[in-house]
């Protein structure tokens, strides 16, 4: 079983920005087994029993550049907690996700605010990810109809390209998602998100594959919004542990504060 890394909470953000569909639905019976296996690997890269880690998030926009270091915890697919360690001004700011709900703790005013539905589309911590991205759940193996790019199946080509179209009854903002998988490691190197007009909206890069928490995974993740010159949000994992024992009490409003 693949373990879930804590940074994968954020990876999940990225992934799940793919979609907001809460439910996986019946897949096409004609999908071939190879595709299902690869998509399953991809999907399960994000799931696990529990995780804990630290990471750095760098956000660069036209207006500002900021770097946050944070600590992350997750349990199952439903619960996660992120707490900012630096910069000092924002130290202690924390985000708790339970199911599809998100709370932010703000140390400056010492209050916990539940993010209302109207703010779910807003940026999370100034990054290129939204709150919706945080709570989204999606499984490519079930929610999308995927096909290989035949040209990339040639043995001489190192990366496999898979194009995925969301099933009709899946509510996602994307019209198409394409991903590149390194054939040797079967790990993703890049994914591209397109809107309904087939315009590229966002590119994700998966880099710096390392062994962390006993698992080889890309440890640097970069989201690049299309058309915003030079903007990106990069998540760099620095420490990661899987399948550790984390109390459910950690994912509560009480522990959010401290």
């Amino acid at each position: 079983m693949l373990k879930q890394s804590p940074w994968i909470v954020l990876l999940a953000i990225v992934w799940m920005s793919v979609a907001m569909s809460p439910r996986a639905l019946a897949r096409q019976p004609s999908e071939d087994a190879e595709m299902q296996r690869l998509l399953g690997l991809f999907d399960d890269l994000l799931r696990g029993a529990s995780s804990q880690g630290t990471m750095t998030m760098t956000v660069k926009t036209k207006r500002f550049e900021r770097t946050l270091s944070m600590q992350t915890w997750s349990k199952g697919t439903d619960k996660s907690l992120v707490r900012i360690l630096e910069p000092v001004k924002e130290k202690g700011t924390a985000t708790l996700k339970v199911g599809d709900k998100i709370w932010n703790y703000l140390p400056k005013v010492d209050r916990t605010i539940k993010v209302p539905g109207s703010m779910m589309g807003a940026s999370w911590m100034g990054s290129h990810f939204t709150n919706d991205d945080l709570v989204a759940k999606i499984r490519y193996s079930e929610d999308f109809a995927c096909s290989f790019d035949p040209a990339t199946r040639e043995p001489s080509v190192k990366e496999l390209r898979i194009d995925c179209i969301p099933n009709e009854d899946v509510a996602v903002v994307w019209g198409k998602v394409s991903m590149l998988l390194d054939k040797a490691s079967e790990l993703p190197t890049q994914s591209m998100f397109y809107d309904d007009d087939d315009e590229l909206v966002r590119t994700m890069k998966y880099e710096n594959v390392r062994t962390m928490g006993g698992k080889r995974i890309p440890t640097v993740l970069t989201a690049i919004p299309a058309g915003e010159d030079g903007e990106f949000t990069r998540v760099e994992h620095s420490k990661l542990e899987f399948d550790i024992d984390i109390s459910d009490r950690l994912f509560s409003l009480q522990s959010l504060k401290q």
Partner: protein
Amino acid sequence: MNKVFVIAWRNLWRTPRRSVVTIGAMTVAVLAMLLYASLVEGYVRDLEADLVEVEVGDLQVHAEGYRDRPSLYTTIDDSDAMIASLEGAGFVATARLLAGGLVAAGESSSGALIKGLDLETNDAVSAIAERVDRGEWLAASDPHGAVLGRGLARALAVDVGDELIVLGQATDGSMANELFQVRGILEAVTAETDLAGVLIADSIFRETFALDQGVHQVLMRRPANLGLDAASALAQSTIQGHEVKTWRELQPLMSQMIDISRSMIILMFVVMYVAIAILILNAMLMSVFERIRELGVMKAVGLSPRTVLSLVLTEAMLQAVVATVIALAVGAPLLWLLVERGIDVSGFGDITAGGMSIGTRMFGAVAPHTILGPIVTFFVLVFLGVLYPGLKAARLRPVEAMRHQ
């Protein structure tokens, strides 16, 4: 000609009951329309005043592109110089800072439009301070005081003195968050402000949103001697490089609403008076019908069709005149009450009309058109209503008329 009046007048009293009923109905209609026109005018003026004096100002300046895509970063950077030159040209102006965000109180939260006001210059431009219903207006001595719309206060279940958290994204990408206390609650403001407006001092706004310089909006009132468009042109020539918009351009819906409200009155008159016109038509048709033989004799001895027509028209017009005089006599004190005292509409709950939340009282307003409009429309419709019976009488052929049973 004055004979026609005499005959018409006496004819009226041949069937006193019918005439009294007709005049009564006319009076009620005219009276209702006088009051209605006054209320609509009062309402429209309130709307305009609320909009212009309280919130929008006559003119606004935004940084290029702000109105298409509002952004914390899209600022006017030379606002001090701009305001100085505007004031040199006779305007009064104040700068505003604007940000979208979230306000939260207890378990509740709501999207909000956060406005940072220059407290020193605001009052000269905007009367919004007067719209504080409960609590107090912003004060420089209370930087963490916030004034918000009544609708928003209700949604958050907060009252004066309660705590409020303002959240948003600061210019540095961090999560803007600041604790405020509800200092005042506004009533009778635009729906936008009512439901989403959070007003704070500009200094705390800058601190919260990490906005060191620049403003998003400059609000101004025009010199008294300038019309809106002339003032707009003057302002635009005074400040190059930024867009100047009139309140009508900024609030096209409200602007249209106001124009439509005014023209709707006429429609209302017509609807109301068509009933009256039918009554007149009927009454005059009856009266002509009853007098066909008599009219035949009149025509036989040489009354011209025109005289007969004018006789019938005069009968109707006399009733209309009497009705109008009574309506004006009765209406004058009522109008005075409407204008001076208004009517209590608090019983109708929270009324929002055309994007403005109305206060608890509605006031009438009297203008030449609120008096002349109902009366002129009334006479036109009475005239149209009586035209058919009148022409019928005028075209009577004496021989047939006299043979009429």
